[in-house]
């Protein structure tokens, strides 16, 4: 299978920042990241959570044990996470690198994904979670690495947003026309 550049970059970035634990609730784009981690990063342990809030709880425990944890989720799961983030990660200053696969942004086909997708950045701002958007596939590694460095260095949970224009390749006819 191909390894999309953006996904390989996410893996390289979190690994370079010293993250060896990834707790996740999967979505389709993240499946590429998880596959690359499994194939190329045997020192990274991935753990599935049943719900995003649980993932942040597990990650918080990992941090208390000296790890630099990453949580990966779809933006729809941010709503499921808010009590964990606002009453555990933020007040205890427990940093978790948070990689959010966006739904509801440009290119979305499912209207049920749009309201939360539209709200993600405003929610992060409201609860004090710095966020950065991966603008190009080629910049994914450095964006993720710097976000992790800031999160762990300043003990502040921070989010990296992966927009659909990067994670979802255009259908064949779109590129054929160009």
């Amino acid at each position, binding site marked *: 299978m191909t390894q999309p550049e953006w996904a390989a970059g996410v893996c390289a970035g979190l690994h370079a920042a*010293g993250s060896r*634990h990834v*707790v996740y609730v999967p979505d389709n784009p993240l499946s590429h990241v998880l596959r690359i981690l499994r194939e190329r990063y045997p020192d990274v*342990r991935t*753990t*599935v*959570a*049943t*719900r995003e*809030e*649980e993932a*942040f*709880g*597990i*990650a*918080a*425990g*990992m*941090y*208390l*044990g*000296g*790890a*630099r*944890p990453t949580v990966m989720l779809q933006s729809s799961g941010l709503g499921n996470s808010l*009590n*964990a983030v*606002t*009453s*555990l990660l933020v*007040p*205890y*200053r*427990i*940093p978790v690198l948070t990689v959010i696969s966006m739904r509801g942004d440009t290119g979305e086909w499912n209207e049920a994904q749009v309201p939360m997708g539209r709200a993600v950045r405003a929610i992060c701002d409201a609860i004090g979670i710095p966020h950065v958007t991966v603008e190009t596939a080629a910049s994914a590694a450095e964006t993720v690495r710097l976000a992790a*460095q800031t999160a*762990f*260095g*300043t*003990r502040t949970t921070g989010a990296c947003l992966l927009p659909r224009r990067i994670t979802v390749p255009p259908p064949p006819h779109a590129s054929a026309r160009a």
Partner: protein
Amino acid sequence: MTRLDATRRVVAALERLGNVPIVASLGHPTYDLYTASDRSANFYTWGSMGLASSIGLGLAMARPDLRVFVLDGDGSLLMNLGSLATIGWTRPQNLVVIVWDNQEYGTTGGQQTATAHGTDLEAAAKAVGAAPTATVKSPDALDAALARAIVEPGPWVIVAKVSESTPSAKPPLDCVAIKQRFMAAIGQTEPGTIGGSQ
């Protein structure tokens, strides 16, 4: 057996292990742990209802050299029942989850939980492979279960039937102070780079 009595028994049973970590669920379980003994290896949660077992799981995974104890509540565990499935899947041998089952939301005024109407949390744990398990209803039975859970491989889930103890004291520590004291107690420096190379 009140929850405070039972908490004192847990603290006494763990004393010979040294300063082992105890993660306490928010509200009354945290207050009773503080009252029983304000150990530096107590991780008091002030919020995040439901996540005590998840925090304990993450800590147990990151520090397999430590035996990690969690004091959860029935209402809290019911809020995050999926945690049992994750524990049953990952099976950390060094995790001991003790659930104070008073069949009520004690911190919020004593509203009944589902365990007052037949929900069996030990059976739920068993069903998802979070075992060995026990349900204990007396101080002696709690001591016996703890004696096993301290030495035998987990993940343990011990459901302790307790009565409400109406705590009167709360830990006078803010969240960051709790975290820093806790991490120092388990010999863990924060992995960030504050004061670091740049």
